């Protein structure tokens, strides 16, 4: 009997252990998050790995040659057309992210410090324009900046200019203006959140210790809201590089971006490996640029103090 009891023990123990495991917080949490995790794994992480794999292959007409080669990267990095597009895209997304954040900071500050009881109404007011059809918002800028457009006819009406400006539309500036508008909410919200977290008594302390509004802002508020500024820059800079709608509608010849080339490789040109190499290159370089920007901001903030 004792032998039977002893014999049964090894069967009981694992079950007890497994039920303890099943009830453990870590296991339950992981089980709960696994459906969205698996979804993102299968439809995001794995596809991106496959894109990376494609970037090392070549394509002969319709078949893909799976021998390892760096040929696509050579094309992506040395062909003048792709190099120019990449540089222009990086320039545009850098300018757009910095402009957007600089323009967004005061409004986020205003809402957080002077919004009073209407803070959430202000935030709602700011997000509304972003729920208009994206295509039509871009189209609207085309109407505003066009030759016979709203801005030109307005300026002529006021007598500021005599004939319509042609420099407004179909260049990289038009792309920058449109994207700065398109991403405004994505910059305002993270900055607002970080401003809300600033302990107001610290600002009072700085005032009591004799700091003026400008020094107080530079030494207390700005450093404390740096995480918000940085996440705003990242959330604008990286996705902006991948926009091909805005360049196509308002960019003209001089506003074409790398995403247009990527799109072409998966459309008419149908060269997946080259498109993949362009995607990977863009992603790596824009991430590096984002990293450097963050580093510069952090260093500048340390010196400003």
């Amino acid at each position, binding site marked *: 009997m004792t032998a039977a009891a002893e014999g049964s023990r090894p069967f009981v123990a694992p079950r007890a252990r497994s039920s303890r495991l099943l009830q453990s*917080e870590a296991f*339950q*949490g*992981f089980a*709960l*998050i696994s*459906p*969205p*995790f698996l*979804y*993102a*794994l299968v*439809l*995001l*992480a794995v*596809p*991106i790995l*496959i894109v990376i794999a494609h970037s090392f292959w070549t394509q002969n007409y319709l078949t893909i040659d799976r021998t390892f080669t760096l040929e696509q990267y050579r094309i992506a990095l040395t062909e003048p057309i792709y190099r120019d597009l990449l540089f222009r895209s990086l320039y545009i997304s850098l300018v757009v992210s910095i402009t957007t954040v600089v*323009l967004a900071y*005061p*409004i986020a*500050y*205003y*809402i957080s410090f002077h919004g009073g009881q209407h803070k959430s109404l202000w935030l*709602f007011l700011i997000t*509304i*324009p972003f*729920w*208009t*059809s*994206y*295509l*039509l*918002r871009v189209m609207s*800028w085309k*109407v*505003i900046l066009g030759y*016979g*457009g*709203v801005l030109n*006819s*307005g300026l002529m009406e006021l007598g500021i200019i005599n004939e319509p400006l042609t420099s407004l539309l179909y260049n990289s500036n038009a792309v920058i203006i449109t994207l700065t*508008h398109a991403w*405004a909410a994505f910059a305002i919200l993270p900055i607002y959140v970080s401003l809300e977290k600033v302990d107001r008594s610290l600002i009072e302390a700085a005032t009591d210790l004799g700091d*003026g*509004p400008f020094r107080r802002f530079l030494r207390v508020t700005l450093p404390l809201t740096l995480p918000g500024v940085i996440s705003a820059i990242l959330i604008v800079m*990286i*996705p*902006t*590089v991948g926009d*091909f*709608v805005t360049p196509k*509608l308002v960019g003209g010849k001089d506003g074409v971006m790398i995403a247009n080339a990527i*799109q072409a490789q*998966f459309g008419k040109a149908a060269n*997946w490996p080259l498109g*993949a190499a362009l*995607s990977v290159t*863009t*992603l790596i370089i824009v991430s590096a640029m984002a990293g450097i920007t963050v580093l510069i901001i952090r260093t500048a903030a340390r010196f400003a103090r």
Partner: protein
Amino acid sequence: MRTLRRLLANWLPAYAFLYIAFLYLPVLLLPIFSINTAASPRFPLSGYTLKWYADLPKTPALIDATENSLIVGVAAAILATILGICAARAVTRYRFPGQRAVSGLIMAPLVLPEVIVAIALLIVLLQLGLSLSLFTVVLGHVLICVPYSVSVLISGFEGFDRSLEEASADLGETALGTFRRVTLPMVMPAIISSLLVSFTISLDEFIMAFFLTGTEATLPIYIWGQLRFAAKLPGVLALGTLLLFGSFILLTFAEILRRRAERRTRMTGAALA
């Protein structure tokens, strides 16, 4: 110092109003030019008409695109919200190793260039032998919507008092019963808000749909096709105006519900504290 402060105090509200004007300018042009008699959008308006609106229901391609968009939007909203509930609940209720990495991956579509996410998905779906259809668009939209759904739901789940669930369990409810009778009623407003936000995103999403759809067009794909023809612009503007008002109503509703959810979780938390 006092003059500087006064300057600052006056400068900010003025800036705020200018900024709002900048945000709303392109949006307000849509309804204005949608009732203009001339096809080309310029001031002064040549006259007022509602004919562009009257023409909308007479366009079969538009009716099809609307149907497709509704199907995709409803499917994407439901799936994204189900996945979002799992993620938001796991993040707010449990602590487990690798949590940051896992939620980072789930939120990643928010900070990735959409074109790259779309082509990656396209390659995989084609290699799996799936033909492009509205179903593949739904798959892509769910990926894009989940991060938004999670953010909305987390704000609804946070501050949710765990002792309420413990009390329910102590009183003999099963885990499922507790979820259905205690958790769900508390978080229902946040869930509906997530559904509405996801639906609105899907309705307006272009890049994913552009790569992942087969022959069936969604509304943004239809609009993209129309933008090539200058004469079709007023019709598109009329459609855009209707979509704007539709989205505005849905999102106002979503915002009211989200706030109610926030207040509800906070109030019960305070009552028990």
